[in-house]
């Protein structure tokens, strides 16, 4: 039985286990029909031309986590930003781990999707926001159909959430292959500010496939800073579908750090519903071996006087392959839009490749839009300069790649996060970063 059929029949089992007398049930039923029609995307589709899912769909994945699995904090501490106080929503093999988590209902809700989907006190919010901005493509619909667990975050108006929130999914390999479909909903009301860090970490060599959907609603003047840390092992794949709906004067940023995984696909979508909105999309990709990372971004400028900033840097070694497909749509009404997009790449090996494709669809006439893609090797004159100071060619190249990528970090607002990523980059590139003045 192929994965699609297995999922369709599993849905019946899933339905029997969940409450069906809810509005969410109708959404799920609708979604499974969409998945049944669309299935998994193939390379024939324009947006999937350079990314084939075949190699990761062939495994016989378990769809439902069976056992409860425990992890000791000390064994997984390294995957946390652990030197500062944070809220934590932690999952092990798809199941919530209260032991590792730190949630809250004190003025804000930092808790579980399973609670939000079943408890009546969340009903209105779920009705207003759940599945309201998520796309209706096959993969997203598949997640919607099986949506039951994930992070639920609601920040009411005028709250500055001082502690960042970490969402971490661990997989331990107690199944020979496992598929996870976390579903996150984040609603940030007027004038509020929240910082979120998301990570998927496999602790096993067994194949893991995560098809994640995150919906983020940033209401008037809200500020949302989201960090995605993708540094998984060679048998773990991630399809990340993130949808962000912004209201007027809100600022949202998503930083995606793609340092590892078998196949990583980021579908990152911003919709600007209001004026004077700012959207920031930044990414650093450093991969080697046979890894594949695909950034598929969309910024939809719907109303006037908004901005978007995209800056993606990539370093590809060995047989690694990358894709950057960045689409910017400026509606006719969206005058005075400023949209910037840059994608710069370095290919370290002859066998590495990147396909980069900016797509601008501009229907307004008074806008500033720019885009630039580069694929290159390292600057020879800079290399000679460094070598003439006694830095061997290998170290000089590493230091330059470090410098090339690390300036993307300037917009990271959590110092501990910045330091951590900085160290990760240095480690990936074999650069010895010691003290700094």
């Amino acid at each position: 039985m192929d994965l699609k059929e297995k999922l369709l029949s599993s849905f019946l089992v899933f339905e029997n286990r969940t409450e069906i007398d809810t509005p969410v049930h109708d959404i799920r039923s609708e979604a499974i029909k969409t998945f049944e029609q669309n299935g998994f995307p193939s390379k024939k589709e324009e947006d999937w031309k350079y990314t084939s899912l075949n190699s990761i769909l062939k495994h016989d994945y378990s769809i439902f986590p069976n056992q409860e699995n425990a992890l000791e904090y000390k064994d997984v501490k390294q995957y946390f930003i652990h030197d500062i106080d944070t809220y934590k929503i932690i999952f092990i093999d798809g199941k919530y781990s209260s032991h590792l988590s730190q949630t809250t209902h004190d003025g804000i809700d930092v808790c579980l999707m399973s609670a939000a989907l079943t408890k009546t006190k969340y009903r209105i919010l779920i009705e207003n926001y759940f599945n309201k901005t998520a796309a209706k493509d096959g993969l997203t619909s598949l997640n919607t159909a099986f949506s039951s667990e994930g992070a639920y975050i609601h920040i009411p108006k005028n709250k500055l959430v001082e502690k960042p929130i970490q969402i971490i999914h661990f997989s331990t390999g107690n199944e020979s292959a496992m598929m996870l479909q976390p579903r996150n909903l984040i609603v940030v009301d007027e004038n509020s500010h929240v910082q979120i860090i998301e990570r998927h970490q496999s602790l096993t060599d067994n194949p893991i496939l995560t098809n994640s959907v995150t919906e983020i609603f940033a209401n008037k003047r809200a500020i949302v800073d989201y960090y995605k840390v993708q540094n998984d092992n060679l048998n773990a794949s991630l399809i990340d579908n993130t949808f962000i709906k912004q209201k007027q004067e809100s600022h949202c940023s998503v930083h995606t750090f793609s340092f590892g995984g078998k196949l990583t696909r980021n579908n990152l979508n911003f919709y600007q519903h209001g004026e004077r909105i700012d959207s920031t999309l930044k990414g650093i990709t450093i991969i080697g071996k046979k890894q594949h990372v695909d950034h598929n971004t969309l910024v939809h400028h719907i109303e006037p006087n908004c901005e978007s900033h995209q800056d993606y840097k990539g370093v590809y070694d060995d047989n690694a392959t990358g894709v950057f497909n960045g689409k910017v749509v400026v509606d006719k009404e969206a005058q005075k839009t400023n949209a910037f997009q840059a994608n710069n790449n370095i290919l370290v090996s002859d066998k590495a490749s990147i396909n980069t494709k900016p797509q601008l669809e501009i229907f307004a006439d008074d806008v500033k839009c720019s885009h630039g893609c580069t694929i290159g090797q390292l600057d020879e004159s800079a290399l000679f300069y460094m070598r003439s100071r006694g830095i061997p060619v290998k170290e000089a190249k590493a230091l330059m790649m470090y410098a090339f990528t690390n300036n993307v970090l300037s917009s990271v607002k959590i110092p501990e996060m910045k330091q951590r990523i900085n160290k990760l980059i240095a480690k990936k590139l074999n650069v010895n970063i010691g003290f700094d003045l």
Partner: protein
Amino acid sequence: MLKINNLHASVEDKGILRGINLEVKAGEVHAIMGPNGSGKSTLASVVAGKEEYEVTKGEILFENENIDELAAEERAHKGVFLSFQYPVEIPGVSVTNFMKTAINETRKAKGLADMPAKDMLKLIREKSELLEIDRKFLSRSLNEGFSGGEKKRNEIFQMAMLEPKLAILDETDSGLDIDALRIVANGVNKLKSKNNAVIVITHYQRLLEHIVPDFVHVLYNGRIVKSGTKELAHELEEKGYDWIKEEVNA
């Protein structure tokens, strides 16, 4: 220390150096002057090991060892330093991190352990004072957004940090105002000793007022056509290069 014999070098099959002979002993300062396009910067780059240049004939001996086949970093490890005419901007690498890497890589090549952070900081402090460099400057990205004067001062700061045996200063005076020129020259003079040597490449005599050469050579069409003492530099300043060209072409 440095002995260049009948050196011919070309870039993309175009001959630029056509038989250079030059000997520089420890403790000496040599000035190389000459009109634009005479091959001065090429000579500096060839000695430092830039790969675009191909040595087609002759040899470069450094401390009696032929260094033609050595990579730029290996020459640096032996004590060759080039102060660039146009220092390259390297965004994202701070001056400090760059120097730390350069010093520790040089130590590694000599089989030494990394310099302890405390000693490194002390050295940085000492040498930045010598060049009158603000500490804040050291955490900036290497050469990025530096003024012409700052770039050149930073080159000499690097020279001070690395303590080379042979320093080649390629047009270090260009783009310097009088104060920066004094600071740079002062730095070079303080670093000079009987154990090291300096080659100053320049168009003008101005820098040579501050860094007084023992010998002055005129490079024209890829050859050293005239050598003398510092008085030759004065003569060139007064009369320009035309009389040299006439002498050579005659």
